[in-house]
């Protein structure tokens, strides 16, 4: 839709601006929640920085992994074209890779400086859907991660997008996911505004896994990889929901 933002002589990437704004708001929310689990502002800030680096690295690595079959199959053409090669290196991120990378980044920080990783996760997990919502708004502006063809007014044309097909009305699944992420953020922030016996982490993981699994059926960008009828993210959603459920079940039995 609007891949670029022009500020005088400067041309900014809309996606980059939105993800930075979302991340800053996410850090703000995490800092506001710090007293719930007794963490210091400085540690929240630094752990979030490490998590932010992990998000970028993890999201990129998972994207490259899903694109590996194409990279291998068309290696000659891709590596002989600097534009295509840079496209793979610069563009393309998978949310789940970012989520796991972010958790790893935060884990490395908390482990190094003797802070409880569990407490950090309980504090900061509420920020994740907020940051993600802004990221999806960025996707909407850029026209990437587009939805299935749909007739107007439900379908929108992304004729300014360097990625989405032109002249085809597409379902704005990015906006739907942004809205659902925002809703999830408000629910988590409201329900877990006080410490509860149940951690917000499994609630978020299972909720998002369900959301993502369903939304994947409205996605139309083939680059994300399809295996045995399900996309990469659907497989991860299934594993995440089942794994989290199993973890809760085992933990509950141990505590009983």
């Amino acid at each position: 839709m609007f891949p670029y933002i022009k500020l005088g002589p400067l041309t900014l990437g809309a996606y980059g601006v939105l993800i930075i704004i979302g991340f800053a708001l996410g850090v703000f929310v995490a800092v506001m929640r710090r007293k719930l689990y007794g963490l210091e502002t400085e540690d929240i800030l630094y752990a979030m920085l490490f998590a932010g680096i992990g998000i970028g690295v993890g999201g990129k690595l998972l994207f490259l992994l899903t694109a590996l079959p194409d990279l291998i199959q068309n290696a000659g053409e891709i590596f002989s074209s600097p534009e295509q090669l840079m496209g793979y290196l610069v563009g393309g991120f998978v949310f789940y890779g970012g989520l796991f990378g972010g958790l790893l980044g935060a884990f490395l920080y908390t482990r190094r400086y003797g802070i409880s990783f569990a407490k950090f996760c309980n504090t900061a997990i509420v920020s994740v859907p907020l940051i993600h919502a802004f990221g999806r708004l960025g996707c909407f502006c850029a026209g990437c991660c587009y939805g299935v063809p749909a007739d107007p007014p439900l379908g929108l044309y992304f004729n300014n997008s360097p990625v989405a097909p032109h002249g085809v009305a597409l379902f704005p699944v990015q906006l739907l996911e942004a809205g659902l992420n925002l809703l999830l953020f408000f629910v988590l922030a409201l329900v877990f505004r006080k410490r509860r016996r149940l951690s917000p982490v499994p609630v978020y993981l299972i909720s998002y896994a369900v959301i993502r699994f369903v939304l994947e059926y409205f996605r139309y960008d083939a680059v994300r990889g399809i295996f045995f009828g399900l996309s990469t993210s659907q497989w991860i959603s299934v594993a995440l929901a089942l794994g989290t459920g199993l973890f809760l079940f085992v933990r509950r039995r141990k505590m009983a």
Partner: protein
Amino acid sequence: MENKTNGKAIAALVLGIFGVLLSFWSAALIPAIVGIIVGIVGIILGVMARKEQPSGMATAGLVLSIVALVLNVVFLIACVCTIGIAAAGSLY
């Protein structure tokens, strides 16, 4: 120990300044990618320096590295799926 920590603060400051300068050439891919990497390393070193021995230099290095990363990301990543991915998409 003190020299090691100061070294991290100095490195963070140098990388932060370098990263910000690179952002002026972010329209070119390679300087921007280098700027992002430089910003990331500067942030890590800046945080480590701030935790081990807080100082004005460590703070400046951390802040400049964050600014470098933000500028390079915003100028470069115009689209999470760039023109190169669009070209790759044409392979399907």
